[in-house]
């Protein structure tokens, strides 16, 4: 067993399996005192599973965790926190209705004569936050502050409670450049105090800016741990996505669609949601939409689909102006939209796979003209076979299916309406690697059949794989468009990064 006193946290040969998949396969991970250690990998690589094993949210199947040289076995995240491993998630896990001070000291408020000493608590909260360059009114509700501030409050709480290891899970996803800079200043300061910091992100610039070492996971296995200074970006991406996929990416968009644009959106936008943009989409084209979280990707999709009515500009199909004032109107023009959060906006968990698949088609026909049961069965069976939806039978409640299969069922729902213009918002989020590749292949097939698609994804490699054009968003505006040979992961990353630098300056 390799433990040295400089490692504050060592995870050795961690195994974790889920029914059907091996999420972690003998993964080693060592975190030194006073380092920022980036943990990278594509979605489904096992990053979050590893983190959940370290913080006790999952119980590992095998392997051992050493904290400060002693073996630990956290029962839950609270236990891990007590032991010294604090975690801050992208979605701030604090209580928005409580004051900042109460959030910091919940469960350990200073007391006098059995009563909470509010004045002492607020004073301690101010002292604590002043170490983080924050001057706040700590008596105000947490919800009244920006996400970045909430993030820092969460870090302050985690460090104050735990003080050995800090795990930052995508902390910068919804922050702007200034806020990221502030966060990084804080991280550097904590590093100087000797904390071990695990940093998870999708943004490679940030990885190079802040990390000392990088560990890459792929498909639940450890690819390697390197010093950030010795690892150039190309090699890092190769570690993350593997050579096979890299090769596949280059061959993907050999034949880009030609011809006149079929769908023309001119000066299309909605105040407060997305700046007016021009967008032309041809038949048989996949337009990828890239950008950071909160850059206006979903807002673009919602305006196109009429979920939020555009307040400027015009939409034309084949040169004929159309009114996309509501999703119903859009569906009538043969539009389809798979939303991002399938749990809340997509599936109806207790209905069967069949019912979920026919839902959109039935809605378009109107409830007065029901689809016959035989027709429903035919459609469901057709798509279960065509999309390879893994389900015991079509009557199984959809919530019992895995994420990837749910995603395919929602795709089936829209395919059943035979759309000509399909918008997919994060079609591969939260599904396993195998299903991932299948969805990508499916997008290719739909494109070849002559469908026009808009695909939003935060996974740049994936956009590269299927897009004939990529639009880059920033600050709720379309800022760049890449096509042909310019669609590479590096170019997209650079376009996003350039867009951000422009904003920072």
């Amino acid at each position, binding site marked *: 067993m390799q433990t040295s006193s400089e490692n504050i946290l060592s995870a050795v040969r961690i195994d974790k399996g889920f029914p059907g998949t091996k999420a972690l396969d003998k993964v080693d991970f060592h975190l030194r005192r006073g380092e920022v250690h980036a943990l990278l990998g594509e979605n489904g690589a096992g990053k979050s599973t590893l983190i959940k094993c370290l913080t006790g949210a999952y119980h590992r199947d095998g392997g051992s965790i050493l904290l400060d040289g002693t073996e630990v076995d956290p029962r839950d995240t*609270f236990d891990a926190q007590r032991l010294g491993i604090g975690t801050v998630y992208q979605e701030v896990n604090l209580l928005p209705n409580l004051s900042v001070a109460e959030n910091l000291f919940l469960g350990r408020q200073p007391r006098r004569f059995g009563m*909470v000493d509010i004045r002492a608590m607020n004073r301690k909260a101010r002292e604590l936050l002043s170490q983080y360059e924050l001057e706040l009114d700590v008596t105000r509700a947490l*919800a009244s502050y920006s996400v970045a501030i909430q993030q820092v409050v969460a870090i302050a709480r985690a460090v104050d409670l735990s003080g050995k290891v800090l795990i930052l899970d995508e902390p910068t996803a919804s922050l702007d450049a200034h806020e990221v800079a502030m966060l990084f200043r804080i991280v550097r300061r904590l590093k100087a105090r000797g904390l071990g910091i695990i940093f998870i992100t999708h943004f490679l610039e940030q990885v190079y800016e802040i990390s000392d070492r990088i560990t890459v996971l792929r498909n639940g296995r450890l690819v390697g741990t390197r010093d950030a200074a010795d690892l150039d970006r190309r090699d890092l991406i190769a570690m993350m996505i593997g050579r096979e996929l890299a090769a596949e990416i280059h061959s993907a968009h050999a034949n880009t669609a030609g011809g006149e644009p079929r769908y023309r959106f001119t000066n299309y936008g909605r105040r407060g949601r997305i700046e007016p943009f021009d967008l032309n989409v041809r038949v048989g084209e996949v337009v990828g939409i890239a950008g950071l979280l909160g850059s206006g990707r979903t807002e673009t999709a919602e305006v196109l689909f009429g979920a939020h009515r555009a307040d400027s500009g015009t939409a034309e199909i084949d040169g004929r102006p159309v009114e996309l004032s509501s999703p119903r109107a859009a569906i009538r023009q043969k539009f389809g939209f798979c939303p991002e959060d399938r749990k809340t906006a997509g599936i109806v968990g207790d209905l069967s796979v069949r019912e979920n698949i026919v839902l959109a088609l039935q809605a378009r026909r109107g409830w007065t003209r029901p689809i016959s049961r035989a027709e429903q069965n035919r459609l469901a069976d057709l798509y279960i076979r065509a999309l390879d939806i893994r389900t015991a039978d079509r009557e199984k409640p959809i919530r019992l299916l895995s994420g990837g299969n749910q995603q395919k069922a929602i795709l089936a729902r829209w395919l059943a309406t035979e759309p000509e213009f399909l918008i997919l918002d994060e079609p591969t989020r939260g599904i396993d690697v195998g299903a991932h590749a299948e969805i990508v292949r499916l997008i290719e097939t739909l494109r070849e059949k002559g469908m026009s698609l808009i695909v939003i994804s935060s996974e740049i490699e994936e956009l590269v794989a299927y897009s004939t054009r990529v639009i880059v968003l920033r600050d709720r505006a379309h800022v760049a468009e890449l096509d042909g040979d310019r669609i590479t992961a590096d170019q997209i990353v650079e376009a996003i990064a350039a867009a951000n630098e422009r904003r920072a300056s």
Partner: protein
Amino acid sequence: MKQKYLPLTATIFIFVLSYALCAAQYPNILSTRVIGNLLTDNAFLGIAAVGMTFVILSGGIDLSIGSVIAFTGVFLAVVLEHTSMHPLVAFALVLMITTLFGALMGAIIHYLEMPAFIVTLAGMFLARGMAFVLSIDSIPIKHPFYATLKGLYYKLPGGGRITLIGGLMLLVFAIGILLAHRTRFGTNVYALGGGTATAKLMGVPVASTTVSIYALSGLLAGLSGIVFSLYTSAGYSLAAVGVELDAITAVVIGGTLLTGGSGFVAGTLVGIFIQGLIQTYITFDGSLSSWWTKILIGALLFAFILLQKGIIHLSRDNRKRA
């Protein structure tokens, strides 16, 4: 001003305004006598509403309160009539029963992950049914100790009286305010209202807090039942029907968010006063049907729900811009 004080300020403003309007028409309404009666008449509702405030702050609801009040009254009447038990012992006994009853409902809500609405609805039928089992008639309570208790009051200048039960309500509110705002338990209640899952992640003892909240509500419903039996000198199983709804109304008019996590115990007191004031006005007027109370309270309730929606909407916009 901080946003969280907005509903409470609105409540106080409405109360002061309506009090001024009433006083302009009937100057007598300012007399300490009326104020004393306001406290006495609403004592049982106020005490129960304190418990309800905690339940609603935690994001729950307790529909059993009215039935528990009726059960308490019948229990006391039956025990005092058929046994020689001293009322104080009977009080302690019945408070124990109702507290346990509340704790049991809290445990079911937490451990069986049942919605509070259904569990306390079941509790409502159960408590009312138990009251009927004890007696279906209205039983008068003639114990001399009751007369002693009813004779206790603090005389205000101007002839008004703060009776024992009116004073008790104020005391319960004072303790409730301390409990909600100055103890860890209180903060935990707010934390549950902010989100159970997050609260758990942050180390809030969700199980014991939930059980304690409903136990507290049961205890205060029991106390409210004792006060009600003192007020009416009787126990009747059909009494206090719908009191839980009046209590919810007072809590919401008092500025507590029905979805939990935000509000003040003190607001509930003002909510009680507003309801009592409307009632008093109608008594003073004499010609208005008492249904006007319900109509006015209904309108107020709507207004407050709209106000809360507006505030939630505003705070969301603020956050987006921040």
